[in-house]
């Protein structure tokens, strides 16, 4: 890893800030992408199906690899006018890829009901060519007939845990949002997550730096070694054969990616021959030269390194097919040696480097999969999760922030695309100028980008699990607000446990008012309870009960999944060298630290539960405003006709205001839950599972199954949106109070993801002094043990909403020197004036 001086000279910083990322070329390419309608792309799935039919009878790893190869070798390729970085997932400007074999029933349903033309999110397809539609239906019908009729995971679970068990997951995962096992959605060919099983894999630094030929050579040598040394010892033949085919599959896959790059080289050469414009001709010749060389070999310059990253990201994406969580990784570290060398040799200017990076950004954004209805309901629509990680401290305590960290932020700021998300590994000694640059980019970008992660906490958690310092320091953000080791950690299974639902069940003595079934334990009639202590006890008992079910559930699911779809995570084998001698994918424990593949338990709704308990204590036990029975009646009616009770509940003390009364309840609930959930070892590693209190959209899907709650929330509405978020609009004491509430106890230690979302009006960030204050706030957040913080900057839209719905925006402040007032208290014409000022960023 390159070690650099983190302090960027003022001159270089200035030059980077003056880089024009949006050159005429990129503006045009971006416009074309924005103007294009999404179109369903079918060639990929047809090639997959064709290959699958051809390889009947071969081991599944090899079949998967061969199908992957066919998709790369025979798909139409295209190189757009003016492109510098190449590699398109589809032949359309904005094509939506789909692999029908993975979800044939869903695709068939969409195709037959004409649902393709709906537009729920910007990645939903809107158009399909009639000819393609026919082919797609044929393909889907084939797979509906040929996919396994039983869901082996479901069968295993039914056998073990009984029918009623499904109620806990059914319909958006009432208690468990199971990642894998769902009764209705369609998992196609493998009837589980199959190839994507809880997998997060992405191009890694060693693979980019060494080239795929290096991986091929390693795999070939390993095969030779196996055969020479007689690896098929008694009792080991199945494992040896598995290893053999996994290595073959790795070779086939790597060769296919190289061949795909060569097709681009040939295409560029052809186009160069015909090109009249001498400048473009030269560019095309350069593209040919680049694609001839990478990703097979070690890049010789910055351009090749960027292109290699593009090809590998695209390949991972294609291989993962259905799960889009393919990250980009530590891009400032991956590209830096080439950037530095080129700059030193005078072969590259910062301007050129910025444009190439911008071109890469656009290619990432154009990579889209078709989102089917069911997936959209449970995942975050529109989220592609190609996370970028910047900065970080290495094992020698050196700061790895470099010029590219600056440049990446500049690209993000100027190109203004919702993705990739950028994460900065923050540490105490972070260069102040860099921090201000990051916050400025955040302000100009708007929505939560870049986010900041606690470098020390991330590394310490790995060290505590026995990871060597050089690896423990080499981690990156991944997926939906988690993080992992670059050397190939594999989150095993992931389940979410819905605390708000468990609390609701507790209120009804284990009975679920929605399904009318006794889903939980009988922990007592709460109308007879006389103290909060009894509520705690009942709730923790329920939690403990569900935690045990969750663990069994996970064990059975995970085992069945591994037995039945062994090719899963093939890409992980080609990306992580340790998998090659191990003969296992990283998911199966082939990567360097098998111990680091413990399960993640998504733990949602803790702040909701804290507010519920606070409301009960405050209103029922302390001020005797009403009885528990009256409260339950009001909740059962979803507050209808009980407006008064609901308002009292809403006005009860809420988490997020530095109010020790609620915060102590929150701490007790959160820490006890932490103990209950991590108290049972993971069945595969014997390690503690990790908790995951992410954000994304789980709070919406999980909220859907939860009835009205004592905090005043209505049935079916979203839960609080992240691990330490307050109920919307209820944190009225400002950002320091919210942070204090969130950090009074070590909520982040046992977690891989706990997000702290904060909203700021742009006006609070308009000067350097104000940005310095925000930097100070970040510092204290981390000093107090926080893990992940991100800022959403509100603009005039937010204020327009506040004007319409004052009750939900009671806490939006307007500040002018020496004066402050709540926005909703202003007369309409002054509200308009503020909105107008906001547009000019000065209120």
């Amino acid at each position, binding site marked *: 890893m390159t070690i650099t001086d983190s302090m960027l000279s003022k001159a270089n910083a200035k030059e980077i800030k003056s880089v024009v990322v949006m050159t005429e070329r990129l503006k045009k390419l971006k416009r074309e992408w924005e103007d294009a309608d999404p179109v369903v792309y079918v060639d990929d799935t047809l090639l997959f199906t064709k290959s699958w039919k051809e390889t009947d009878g071969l081991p599944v790893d090899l079949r998967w690899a061969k199908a992957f190869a066919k998709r790369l070798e025979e798909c139409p390729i295209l190189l757009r006018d003016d492109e510098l970085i190449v590699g398109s997932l589809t032949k359309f400007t904005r094509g939506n890829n789909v692999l029908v074999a993975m979800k044939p029933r869903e695709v068939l349903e969409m195709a037959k009901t004409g649902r393709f033309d709906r537009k729920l999110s910007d990645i939903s397809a809107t158009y399909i060519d009639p000819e393609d539609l026919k082919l797609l239906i044929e393909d889907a019908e084939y797979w509906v007939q040929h996919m396994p009729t039983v869901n082996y995971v479901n069968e295993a679970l039914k056998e073990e845990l009984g029918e009623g068990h499904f109620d806990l997951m059914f319909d958006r995962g009432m208690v468990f949002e199971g990642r894998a096992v769902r009764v209705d959605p369609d998992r196609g060919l493998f009837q589980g997550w199959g190839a994507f099983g809880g997998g997060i894999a992405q191009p890694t630094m060693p693979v980019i730096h060494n080239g795929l030929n290096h991986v091929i050579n390693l795999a070939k040598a390993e095969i030779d070694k196996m055969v020479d040394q007689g690896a098929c010892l008694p009792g080991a033949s199945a494992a040896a054969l598995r290893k053999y085919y996994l290595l073959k599959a790795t070779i086939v896959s790597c060769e296919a990616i190289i061949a795909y790059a060569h097709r681009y080289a040939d295409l560029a050469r052809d186009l160069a021959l015909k090109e009249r414009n001498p400048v473009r001709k030269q560019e095309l010749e350069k593209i040919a030269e680049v694609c001839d060389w990478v990703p097979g070999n070690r890049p010789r310059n910055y351009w090749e390194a960027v292109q290699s990253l593009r090809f590998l990201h695209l390949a991972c994406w294609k291989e993962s097919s259905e799960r889009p969580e393919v990250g980009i990784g530590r891009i400032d570290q991956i590209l830096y040696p080439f950037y530095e060398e080129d700059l030193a040799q005078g072969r590259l200017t910062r301007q050129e480097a910025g444009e190439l990076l911008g071109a890469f950004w656009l290619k990432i954004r154009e990579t889209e999969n078709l989102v089917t209805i069911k997936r959209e309901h449970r995942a975050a629509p529109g989220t592609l999760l190609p996370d970028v990680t910047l900065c970080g401290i290495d094992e020698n305590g050196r700061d790895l922030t470099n010029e590219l960290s600056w440049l990446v932020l500049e690209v993000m700021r100027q190109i203004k695309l919702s993705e990739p998300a950028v994460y900065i590994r923050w540490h105490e000694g972070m260069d102040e100028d860099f921090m201000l640059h990051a916050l400025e980019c955040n302000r100009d970008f708007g929505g939560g980008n870049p986010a900041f992660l606690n470098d020390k906490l991330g590394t310490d958690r790995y060290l505590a699990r026995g990871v060597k310092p050089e690896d423990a320091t080499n981690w990156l953000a991944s997926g939906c607000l988690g993080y992992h080791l670059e050397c190939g950690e594999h989150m095993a299974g992931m389940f979410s446990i819905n605390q708000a639902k468990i609390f609701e069940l507790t209120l009804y003595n284990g009975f679920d008012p929605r399904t009318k079934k006794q889903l939980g334990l009988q922990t007592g009639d709460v109308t007879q309870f006389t103290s909060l202590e009894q509520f705690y006890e009942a709730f923790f008992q329920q939690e403990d009960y569900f935690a045990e079910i969750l663990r069994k559930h996970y064990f059975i699911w995970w085992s069945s999944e591994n037995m039945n779809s062994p090719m899963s995570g093939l890409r992980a084998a080609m990306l992580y060298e340790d998998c090659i001698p191990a003969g296992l994918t990283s998911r199966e424990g082939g990567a360097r630290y098998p111990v680091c593949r413990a399960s993640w338990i998504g733990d949602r709704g803790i702040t909701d539960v804290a507010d519920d308990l606070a409301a009960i204590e405050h209103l029922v036990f302390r001020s005797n405003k009403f009885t528990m029975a009256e409260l339950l009646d009001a909740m059962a009616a979803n507050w209808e006709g009980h*407006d*008064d009770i609901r*308002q*009292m509940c809403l*006005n009860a003390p809420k988490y997020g205001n*530095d109010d020790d009364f609620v915060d102590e309840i929150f701490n007790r609930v959160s820490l006890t839950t932490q103990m209950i959930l991590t108290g049972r070892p993971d069945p595969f590693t014997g390690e503690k599972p990790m908790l995951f209190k992410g954000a994304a959209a789980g709070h919406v899907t999980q909220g859907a199954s939860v009835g009205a709650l004592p905090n005043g929330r209505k049935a079916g509405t979203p839960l609080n949106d992240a691990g330490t978020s307050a109920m919307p609009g209820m944190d009225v*004491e*400002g*950002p*320091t*109070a919210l942070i*204090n509430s969130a950090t009074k106890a070590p909520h982040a230690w046992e977690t891989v993801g706990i997000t702290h979302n904060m909203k700021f009006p742009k006006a*609070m960030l*308009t000067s350097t*002094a*104000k940005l*310095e*204050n925000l930097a*100070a*706030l970040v*510092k*204290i957040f981390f*000093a*107090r043990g926080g893990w992940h913080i991100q800022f959403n900057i509100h603009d005039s839209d937010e204020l327009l909403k506040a004007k319409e719905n*004052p*009750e939900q925006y*009671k806490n939006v402040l*307007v*500040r*002018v*020197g*020496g*004066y*402050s*007032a*709540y926005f*909703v*208290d*202003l*007369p309409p014409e*002054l509200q308009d004036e*503020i909105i107008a000022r906001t547009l000019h960023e*000065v209120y």
Partner: protein
Amino acid sequence: MVGPVGLLQVVRGHGVPRVDCKGSSMGEIMGTVFNIQRYSIDDGPGIRSTVFLKGCPLNCKWCSNPESQNRNPEISHRDSLCSKCGICVQVCEAAAITVDEAGVHIDRDRCNVCGKCIDACDREVLELMGRSMTVEEVFSQLQRDTDYYESSGGGVTICGGEALYQPEFTFALLKRCREVGIHTCLDTAGYGTSSALQRILQYTSLVFYDIKHLDARIHRELTGKQNGLIMRNLELIIRSGVPVVIRVPYIPGHNDSKENIEALAKTVSGMSKEAKVNLLPYHRFGMGKYAMLDRRYELAKLLPPSKEDLSKAKEIIESFGLACEVAV
């Protein structure tokens, strides 16, 4: 910005005896507070908490914090949240409150601030402005953010209303803060006794000082009081050596004449060339709060000043050798 270390030096530089008032009766001194604003970043350097005291001897027509003027607690109503259910009317024994299409109205002569309506309203429309709090109570709120002050070079700001209108409280609170190394700003219009000011200055790191008009007679027309005391107090502050920022509310048609700006700059520069001047352009955002207190806002038709006028005023002030900024 003054960091925590710099701060201690300031304290020692002034040779102030470090007396501990904890546990003494000073912590029990009561003040009327109407708001404690955290993460306040417009009231001095860094991240601050601003304590707003209630009550002001002046009565400026353009005041944007009318809830700060009256020394006594008052009920305010946030009409945008009101459902017009009328429950508050039923519980009011003084028959002070009425509700109609336009919103809530409270007859201030009748209202005895019993607070019954506040408890009855479940939509948080009604709010008690002004609470009696001890120095220790306020301080315990302020010290929750000590680490933010330290990391940002911030601290505590006390303003009003008029901080000098409750001199014992202000003194005790600022002393309490400075004893634990918290940077303190005093935001004042200067209408208080010089002896009180002098005591308070011992525990003040930075002063924001309002000047409205240089002409004593016009000053009285605009604010109800003459400005002699205010100008004398300014001199006292400047002599004390505590850094000061002069704040001039720039109110079109009231104090924006060339003569006044010149007189102001001349007077200030005669006292000190170090003093900074901030121009605060008039804005009408306080208007909503007048309605919340059933008061009439006299300047409803007055529009904010133009950028050109402000920069002209800034030039005049700078021509006297003073640093000047226009606040946004």
